[in-house]
């Protein structure tokens, strides 16, 4: 008995941090996803000159919780002809893969479940790609035409863009020289420049491919409402449906985090090595203070007392976050001897802030695209993938390789490496555009002869 307790204690001593991270993620992520949905609806409303959710809580702030409760108590329907077991397992598989992929990600120097996983980014990409099984199985199991079509489309789309995304990652890895997530971010710190600047074409390719992989508009063909009702989710209802939803948004967070880690400097502050820009450290607490102040300002305008209290609570929360962010920056001024002791807290807290900030910016871009660009047709989507993005990414890998040789020949470091990589990016873009124009000419020649197949997919 004692030996068992001792073993447990030893185990906890070794793994308390990853375990805590895991519990926090599983507990908090559904809530975060709910609020991402709320932000998306609010943004959509703003861009369409509406108000969006306003009823539940002040400015609809409690809407996600109401939605979750609604989904929990909804009637559960499994179609007669469905394959019951697969129907049960498919959403679980989807959400499991999406959540498990987070294990490899680092939301800051300390906040990581699988500490120092040496295949880091490969693990994340590999596990998150497994989510497609959940979609295909769910679509097949529901035995509905819409579901099957959506699942097939989804798999074809994911498979097509996986290659382009993989090539873009290879491009980033050329600069990093490692797969370990912490080392990738550290490499961007020591080189002083984010890989997004060094490999802009790869970043662009990854951006487009990640939108397609998460089935987001303008590439949301698998769940195109006007064509396929809801795609692979058509027959799913209640909490099963919300598991799919959770998986989709978690996947968005995962691709945004991968892009942030590899191309946007992870948890590094912008220009982390530039001494005179150190005032940027005051930005996060000031931002949170600003939000808190705004909430207090809006408080008297709320119609009922409960809503006023809630607004005040939100302001208080923002103030606490601001204080936590300000403490590691301001404490060394008060007591210079604390500088060393505070350093890891500074790295952890501010690193986390910048990482979340960058991921949010990436997600905001996703949403912005969704409300701006109309949906693609399926053959257009496939053409974009196979005729443009894949050749572009392959050419890009090669020219970046050449640029690295040139850079090493002239001994270019940090920002100076841009002198070699920018022409490379231009060469890659011109080459891919040339391929595209040849392709389009060929298309125009064929257009007169071939009959359109409206039932193609």
């Amino acid at each position, binding site marked *: 008995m004692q030996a068992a307790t001792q073993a447990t204690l030893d185990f906890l001593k070794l793994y308390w941090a990853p375990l805590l991270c895991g519990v926090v993620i599983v507990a908090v992520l559904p809530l975060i996803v709910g609020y991402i949905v709320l932000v998306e609806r609010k943004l959509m409303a703003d861009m369409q000159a509406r108000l969006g959710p306003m009823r539940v809580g002040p400015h609809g702030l409690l809407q996600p919780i109401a939605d979750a409760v609604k989904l929990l108590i909804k009637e559960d329907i499994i179609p007669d002809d469905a394959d019951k077991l697969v129907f049960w397992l498919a959403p679980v598989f989807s959400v499991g893969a999406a959540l498990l992929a987070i294990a490899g990600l680092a939301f800051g120097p300390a906040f990581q479940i699988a500490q120092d996983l040496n295949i880091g980014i490969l693990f994340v990409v590999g596990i998150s790609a497994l989510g497609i099984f959940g979609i295909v199985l769910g679509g097949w199991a529901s*035995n509905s035409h819409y579901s099957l079509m959506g699942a097939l489309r989804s798999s074809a789309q994911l498979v097509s863009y996986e290659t382009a995304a993989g090539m873009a990652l290879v491009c980033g890895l050329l600069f990093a020289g490692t797969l370990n997530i912490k080392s990738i971010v550290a490499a961007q710190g020591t080189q002083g420049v984010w890989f997004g600047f060094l490999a802009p074409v790869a970043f662009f390719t990854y951006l487009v491919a990640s939108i397609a992989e998460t089935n987001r508009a303008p590439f949301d063909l698998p769940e195109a409402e006007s064509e396929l009702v809801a795609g692979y989710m058509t027959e799913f209802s209640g909490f099963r449906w919300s598991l799919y939803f959770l998986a989709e948004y978690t996947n968005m967070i995962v691709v945004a985090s991968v892009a942030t880690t590899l191309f946007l400097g992870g948890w590094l502050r912008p220009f982390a090595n530039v001494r005179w820009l150190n005032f940027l450290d005051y930005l996060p607490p000031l931002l949170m203070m600003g939000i808190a102040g705004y909430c207090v300002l809006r408080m008297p305008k709320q119609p009922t007392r409960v809503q006023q209290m809630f607004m005040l609570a939100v302001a208080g929360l923002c103030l606490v976050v601001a204080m936590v962010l300000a403490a590691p920056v301001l404490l060394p001024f008060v007591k210079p001897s604390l500088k060393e002791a505070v350093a890891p807290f500074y790295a952890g807290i501010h690193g986390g802030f910048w990482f979340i900030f960058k991921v949010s910016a990436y997600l905001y871009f996703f949403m912005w695209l969704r409300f701006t660009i109309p949906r693609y047709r399926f053959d257009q989507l496939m053409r974009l993938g196979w005729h443009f993005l894949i050749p572009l990414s392959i050419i890009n890998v090669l020219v970046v390789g050449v640029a690295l040789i040139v850079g090493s020949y002239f001994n270019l470091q940090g920002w100076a490496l841009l002198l070699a990589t920018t022409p490379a990016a231009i060469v890659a873009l011109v080459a891919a555009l040339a391929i595209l124009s040849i392709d389009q000419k060929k298309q125009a020649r064929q257009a007169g002869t071939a009959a359109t197949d409206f039932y193609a997919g």
Partner: protein
Amino acid sequence: MPNQYLPVLIYAALVIAFPAVTLIAAKLIRPTSTNVGAKLKPYECGIPPEGDARRRYSVRFYIIAMMFVIFDVETMFLIPWAILYKGWVAAHMGLFALTSMLVFLGILLVGYLWLYKKGALEWA
């Protein structure tokens, strides 16, 4: 050295537990459903569904899947090359590393061109 994958395994158990627990909780909370009319039939815009959904579908999906295998394996081979490339460049062997990858990519490029000519990359 602590095992790197042990936390992942424990986290995987947590991840599986999450949907299991919520699904069971939902089962306890929600009202029992009643089967009325065609409620349990697949949705097809309000009319009775036309036959079984598991029919044959377009061969293009199979072609895409096959091409994916080729190109994804290519990416897999590129990743170790990309990791080691900086070291090779630093050792002034960059051109050797690049040309060896060029040969590999060249073979695949011929395949890509052939697929392109055959029209395998066309959807409609």
